[in-house]
């Protein structure tokens, strides 16, 4: 009798012990560039909620970088319990190359495993001196557009597809016209940075270009940091529904014994509290109630999805961004004519000298 009690106690101690004595549970969230501030808030809120619910402290570390680069780090062994990346293709790659999570990962959480969405918008100089209102204004001669290289940047891929999709919609699905439009657009791009933050730096700090093509949340972040007297956000009439998805990395979480808390962490993003934090950081919420509450923050825009127009990421990647794909061909065959190739014109009134506007300059 006594012996069994002791044994039971020992068993309980063994089970509970790690939680009680080994300090807080640790989670690593590997994310992409513009989510730094978002997840700082999410982590604090989730830790509080988890402590209240289970009595266990949870300590969440964040890692940020270009989406593709982050995925590669996970493939190469970065111990991510959860990944929250810029596009599904990058999590697909983790599933495909390292088999750390099942191929159907995207069906495990609601809304394509995307708790919040974003879109592609324009950031222009104060007063919008080049009168940029919609996509067509970007291909006008004399307008210089800053966008990162879609081969290395997730955000840039969304931007490229947004432009292509706009042209498709405008020309009744004429693929040739869409290609022509995108070719003209990149003819107006004087610099291809390798990541979204790099492009923001080029546009904001170095005063190059008339319009920056990028994430909506990143544009608002730049607006807040630079000030409304420097830049303006212009939302086009049509854009893409950018879905930055989230997933538990099964094999790593199982190894760390964090599967349960990792799941709860991602589910927290879908709760009203998580949705509100997202909205405050200019991510479009999925929840209709929260969306209604923050409706004034987000301009009305007609959104199409990548599945609708491009048949999903795998297809889009293969056709447009793989080696020898459409993006390569645009440059290779000199489709970008010399006439359409503009020098950067600088509409930036007076902030050409480095003032550290972006806290995290892309450093390779």
């Amino acid at each position: 009798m006594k012996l069994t009690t002791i044994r039971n106690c020992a068993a309980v101690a063994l089970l509970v012990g790690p939680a009680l004595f080994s300090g807080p549970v640790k989670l690593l969230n590997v994310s992409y560039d513009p989510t730094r501030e978002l997840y700082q808030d999410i982590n604090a809120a989730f830790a509080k909620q988890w402590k209240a619910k289970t009595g266990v402290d949870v300590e969440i570390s964040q890692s940020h970088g270009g989406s593709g680069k982050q995925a590669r780090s996970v493939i190469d062994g970065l111990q991510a319990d959860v990944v929250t990346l810029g596009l599904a293709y990058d999590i697909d790659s983790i599933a495909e190359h390292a088999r750390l999570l099942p191929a159907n990962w995207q069906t495990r959480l609601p809304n394509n495993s995307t708790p919040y969405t974003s879109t592609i918008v324009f950031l222009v100089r104060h007063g919008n001196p080049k009168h940029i209102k919609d996509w067509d204004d970007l291909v006008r001669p004399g307008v210089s557009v800053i966008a990162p290289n879609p081969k290395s940047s997730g955000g840039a891929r969304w931007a490229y597809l947004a432009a292509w999709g706009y042209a498709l919609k405008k020309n009744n699905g004429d693929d040739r016209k869409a290609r022509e439009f995108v070719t003209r657009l990149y003819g107006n791009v004087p610099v291809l940075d390798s990541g979204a933050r790099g492009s923001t730096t080029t546009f904001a700090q170095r005063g190059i270009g008339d319009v920056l093509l990028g994430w909506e949340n990143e544009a608002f972040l730049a607006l807040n940091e630079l000030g409304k007297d420097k830049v303006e956000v212009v939302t086009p009439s049509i854009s893409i529904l950018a879905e930055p998805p989230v997933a538990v990395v099964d094999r790593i979480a199982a190894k760390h014994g964090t599967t349960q808390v990792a799941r709860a962490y991602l589910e927290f993003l879908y709760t009203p509290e998580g949705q509100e934090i997202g909205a405050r950081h200019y991510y479009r919420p999925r929840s209709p109630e929260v969306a209604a509450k923050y409706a004034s923050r987000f301009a009305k825009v007609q959104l199409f999805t990548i599945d609708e127009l491009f048949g999903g990421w795998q297809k889009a990647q293969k056709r447009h961004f793989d080696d020898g794909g459409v993006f390569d061909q645009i440059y290779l065959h000199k489709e970008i004519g010399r006439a359409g190739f503009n020098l950067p014109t600088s509409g930036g009134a007076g902030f050409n000298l480095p003032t550290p506007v972006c806290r995290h300059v892309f450093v390779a």
Partner: protein
Amino acid sequence: MSISFKKPSILPGFWPAFSYTILYLSLIVLIPLSAIFLKSLTSSWSHLWQVVTSPEVVASYRLSFGASFVAGLVSVVVGFLVAWVLVRYQFPGKALADALVDLPFALPTAVAGIALTSLYTDNGWLGRYLVPLGIKVAFTPLGVMVALTFIGLPFVVRSVQPVLADADAELEEAAASLGASRWQVFRLVIFPIVRPALLTGFALAFARALGEYGSVIFIAGNMPMKTEITPLLIVTKLEQYDYAGATAIAAVMLTASFLLLLAINTIERRTRRFMVTG
């Protein structure tokens, strides 16, 4: 057995030193480098060949090797001049100037890249005067050369400086007193002394420029076929999970650099031997 191997030296310990050299070179240099070649072999030959000969990649070799070569040459000329001034003249602030030479070594290259770019863009301090003259530096191959020259300078200065300091100014005076013209003094006395050091400096600056990434990507503009350097394409390939392709380009670059450096070192050794014997 070790006849041709070692020359008698007063200090003992040839074999431990030699073995240690081989071990160290293997651990630090050869093993990581062979890993590159092995990794690239995980793909089929035809795929690899296709990758390393694709037009975009070939254009990048041209830019990377060409710009590095030009940057190396510029560094040799300017570096020699700087070293000459630092060794042969006394002037106020000399210690400061001497320390400035090393700065490109210490500066994170990305910072250098950002600084150079903001100088040379249309509304930058230099760009606003150069661009109206039709000289575009930022986002052109010229910009790549500027960045590579910036990081290459210390290599030449630091290779040449000690050699110049060792060469007595009296040699020049002697030559002059024997009737040599100024040009002859330079060509026949000074230049042969510093030639090996110049070659070493060139090789170092050239090699460093080939591998440079951080500073160049900011000023290059990274336009495919125009201003993409080879290291950038390697990174781009990695971003696309094409590890084999990335390592294949790296292998091509390594082989080419190795052959070039070997050639430069051979020339240098020749000129050195020339000096000792003749």
